[in-house]
């Protein structure tokens, strides 16, 4: 067999191997299920990568591998709703950035799907997951309509094994920073967005004429118009990056006009229109740690944005708003608590809420039988900065708490001649799977 074929066969094996043919019981911890009140001294039972039982009185089958979580806290793996994990390796090195399609002149890239550019071997993945973040939305940006995102679990050697859901949402920007790419004014942006949505609807009604070349010029390419159909049909949400209160209202108006579902991203001044967002049942993805009038569209941004939105009844997901430091989403949630959000709501904003917003709550977001076993054991309050991550399980499989970062740390932990000579691969901490029974 050629080397190439062998590699392909190995890849196929990895892709199809059962997530983990084993039973794991996490026992004795305070289990924050997100499905109900926390269970003190609870057990989470995992079989073949899925959760099979959660509760105070779960019998641990003989032969199960047991993780002692006494005195610790057990949560679903955390979920960051706005990253470019797998799409950006080094910010300033353009060759490593695959999250935007520079598509002139119309700046509509609805068909741009980040899935095909996703790198499962990104160095950002281990750094993120050993901090307890197991799931991320990886999304495009740029232009008026940026394209489509994916939800991925931070595991696996290939895209298929990490992909939870593709074509999760469509992204558009009505933010100040995107004006130049779309008409140079707020009204220009909304005019173009309306035109594209309208043409996408028109296209769907006249596909045959269009394909025969007997139809007027439309505001986007055929591929883009096709890609917008799920949005128009209400099957795919349109995430609109927008910050000023008045622009959020405009977004709500467009959503109503076209009968589409929207999610607000950015949302610096969302608290000012919290009631309207709640009435329209529109979720918001917020970064907590922003409280400066950094731009004229975010003059009203404040730390208690999430708390105010929640009080009004808006579903909120919290993001770190970063790729390399998506691992800090728990710090964002902790700061939301320091600014009025309940601890329970803060946890929900990085677990169950995003799972619901992105349509993957059937598999993720809470510790309930049937869901994928993305589980983290914490040495204490998961939102506290001094709390260590003790165990991370993704699809029921324990992830070694090793990343390029911890390896560099260990390489230089003792400065001596060995450091000067660069230790060989054999001297590195080996990313061994936890022994499995």
């Amino acid at each position: 067999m050629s080397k190439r074929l062998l590699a392909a066969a190995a890849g196929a094996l990895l892709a199809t191997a059962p997530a983990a043919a084993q039973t794991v019981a996490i026992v004795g911890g305070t289990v924050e299920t997100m499905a109900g009140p926390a269970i003190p001294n609870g057990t989470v039972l995992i079989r073949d990568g899925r959760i099979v039982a959660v509760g105070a009185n779960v019998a641990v089958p003989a032969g199960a591998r047991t993780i002692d979580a006494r005195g610790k806290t057990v949560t679903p793996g955390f979920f960051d709703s706005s990253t470019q994990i797998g799409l950006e390796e080094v910010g300033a090195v353009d060759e490593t950035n695959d999250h935007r399609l520079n598509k002139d002149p119309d700046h509509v890239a609805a068909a741009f799907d980040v899935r095909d550019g996703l790198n499962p071997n990104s160095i950002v993945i281990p750094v993120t997951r050993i901090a307890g973040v197991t799931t991320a939305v990886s999304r495009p940006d740029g232009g008026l309509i940026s394209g489509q995102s994916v939800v991925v679990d931070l595991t696996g050697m290939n895209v298929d094994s990490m992909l939870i859901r593709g074509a999760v949402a469509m992204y558009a920007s009505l933010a100040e920073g995107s004006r130049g790419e779309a008409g140079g004014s707020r009204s220009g942006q909304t005019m173009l967005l309306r035109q594209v949505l309208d043409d996408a609807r028109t296209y769907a009604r006249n596909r045959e004429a269009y394909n025969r070349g007997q139809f007027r010029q439309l505001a986007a390419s055929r591929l883009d118009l096709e890609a917008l159909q799920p949005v128009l049909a209400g099957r795919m949400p349109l995430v609109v990056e927008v910050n000023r209160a008045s622009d959020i209202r405009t977004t709500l108006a467009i959503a109503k006009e076209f009968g589409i579902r929207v999610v607000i991203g950015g949302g610096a001044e969302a608290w000012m229109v919290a009631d309207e967002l709640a009435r329209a049942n529109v979720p918001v993805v917020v970064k907590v740690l922003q409280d400066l009038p950094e731009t004229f569209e975010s003059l009203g941004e404040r730390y208690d944005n999430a708390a105010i939105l929640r009080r009004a009844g808006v579903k909120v997901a919290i993001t770190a708003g970063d790729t390399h430091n998506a691992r800090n989403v728990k710090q964002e949630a902790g700061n939301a608590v320091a600014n009025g959000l309940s601890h329970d709501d803060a946890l929900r904003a990085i677990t169950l809420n995003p799972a619901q917003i992105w349509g993957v709550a059937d598999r993720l977001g809470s510790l309930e039988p049937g869901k994928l076993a993305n589980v983290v054991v914490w040495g204490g309050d998961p939102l506290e900065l001094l709390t260590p991550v003790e165990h991370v399980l993704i699809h029921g499989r324990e992830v070694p708490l090793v990343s390029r970062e911890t390896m560099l740390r260990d390489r230089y932990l003792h400065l001596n001649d060995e450091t000067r000579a660069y230790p060989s691969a054999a001297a590195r901490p080996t990313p061994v799977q936890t022994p499995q029974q």
Partner: protein
Amino acid sequence: MKRALSALLLAAAGCAHAGGPSSQQPKPAASATVPVPPVPFPSTYHPFRSVPTLIRGATVMTAAGQVIPNGQVLMVDGKVAAVGQTVNAPAGATVIDATGKYVTPGIIDVHSHLGVYASPGVDANSDGNEATNPVTANVWAEHSVWPQDPGFVRALENGGITSMEILPGSANLIGGRSVVLKNVPSRTVQGMKFPGAPYGLKMACGENPKRVYASRGPSTRMGNVAGYRTAWIEAAAYRRKWDDWDANGRKASDMPTRDLGLETLAEVLRGHILVQNHCYRADEMAQMIDISHEFGYHIRSFHHGVEAYKVRDLLAREGIGASLWADWWGFKMEALDETNANLAMVHQAGARAIVHSDDPGGIQRLNQEAAKAVLAGRQAGIDVSENDALRWLTANPAWALGIDDKVGTLEPGKQADVVVWSANPFSVYARPEKVYIDGALIYDRANPNLHPVSDFETGLLPAEAAR
């Protein structure tokens, strides 16, 4: 991404101070007799009105080696008068019951661009990089500082920041003079200037100058080094010219012509201005140290030092501080080899670890950044005490700025820059409740009259938006 971008664009370093390094630093040879031109733009800062105040019942973290449960801090005439389990307060002192709370020295950021890259971040407010020449030793950050930047207020009320160094940006090999400010509301920058704080000189290594000057040079790291060396050769000659003039009786007719840039560099060579050097990579830090030896100046602190852990022995030996983030990484090549254990590893090696922000958001939570670094240290087997971690935020930055004889610890005689926190400052839930600067209550969470509002933010949102 926003954060990374801001680091990329703004990352800058460098400031130093006139006034000798106060700790065990190798001092460059100083020629004390040479006339230093009188410093224009003198500080007009004077403390706000204070009353004798006793804080009691709190866990007092002095940053001087003591953590005192249920302790007391007395402030009189703007100074820390006493710290202990129980202290003798004068009759009539205002008593603050801080039971269950924590008290620390004011937090100090050695690396801020507040005022020079003010909010809102529109082009008109972009005053941090004089990116017109690779060497602009002639510019002074204080001439860009807008005292109405709302970021000052946020740093106070969220971060407990009482002092900070404002630096020019990192576009240039030598970016200019920094200035140290007290974080008080003021109409003028002179009204914020920390009296007696030495000036700093911002220098920058690596990718930023390369990128900014790619088309005209320097466009390489070797070009960068040639640029620094050329500047120091000119500075040494300039210094000699003035020394000769001094030695020859200071004849008015022979007085050399002043050059603002060389004047600043000569002051560095005389040890009056402290070098603050933006530098990420371990190998580049070693290069910069060689250059400092060649020309006889001392680098007070490397800023950003993502790879400081790789040369922490060298930093300790040279007596150079390491001003670091807890976790920023990945936004450019020279920020790739990050570890959250950086601060703890540097600390363990005996070098001065400092948490810095370089960011108007980060400056609001240096305490939280320190907590992340403490955890990473523990995970690497390095146990950093709370007192030592607090020193990363107070005493060590004070040293880097040459003001550690005045602030940075809660010890009698020091300026009473004090923060009362709602909880242990290394908790994500902790918030500053009261901030004192020179003994005056500048911020009080419980008192809306003591929530400073900048001119820019006055009337900015419609009254209906207030909750």
